[in-house]
């Protein structure tokens, strides 16, 4: 890709993407009230907390399965 081609694509991009006007580039209001509101919100539970029960259930199911079918252990190890 040569320099003129790069310039053409850059020009095309400038035309295609939304421009940030001078007004838009400046912060129009104080965001501290919004920040305070965010700080006062109770912390969201970590994503892993929502899924950890599923991991444990899967592990338990695997343990039960292997207990009933111990011959499956080499097959499982092969596929790991």
């Amino acid at each position, binding site marked *: 890709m040569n320099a003129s081609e790069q310039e053409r694509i850059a020009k095309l991009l400038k035309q295609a*993407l939304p421009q940030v006007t001078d007004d838009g580039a400046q*912060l129009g209001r104080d*965001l*501290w009230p919004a920040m305070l509101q*965010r700080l006062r919100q109770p912390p969201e539970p970590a994503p892993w907390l929502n899924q950890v029960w599923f991991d444990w259930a899967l592990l338990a199911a695997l343990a039960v399965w292997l207990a009933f079918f111990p011959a499956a252990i080499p097959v499982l190890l092969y596929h790991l």
Partner: protein
Amino acid sequence: MPVLEQLSPGGLGQSSQGRSSPGQSDVLRQFARGELDAFEALFRRHQSEVYRSIVAIVRDPALAEDLTVETFWRIHRAHAHFDPARSFEAWARRIATNAALDYLKSASHSFTKNTRARDTPDPLEDLPQPPLPDPAITQEIRTRTAQAFHQLPPKLQVAATLALIEEQPYKEIAATLGISAGAVKLRVFRALRLLRTKLKQQGIEP
């Protein structure tokens, strides 16, 4: 002395040499200890700059305001990891870029889904259009170019936006993204090459 008064009006929490003045150092140390007053002082001092760095990437003022709050939320959570001897400005800018990047990743995912869901997609129709467009470039070409651009990997989008549209120096972008200037050049080149391929697939000869 009140925390807000410890920040001089001209600086950004750091002197031009990247070192903090005594008053600024106090604020940064108080922030690192988790004091809300110090956090507020830094927020009020840096919110405009963080906003500007985000709006340059996402190009949507309302969204940039939300992401500014999100950035400072991350900053607040990570206060214990902040080293007061280092530049708060650079640290905040890095976190802001990551927040914008995370948004682009999620937006890219939903954008792809929307594009697939609609036969004649125009997800950018609600965004403000550039003023005084070149008459040689039709609206359809602009829309298709924007669509192609938003299909690029978010990291390439950020590098290309800052380098080609904002025309920031590679060194500055490198500091913002936490990568080398060479890596920035590579990302911009990859973005251009991918974009050219996608445009040609759509019958647009750049």
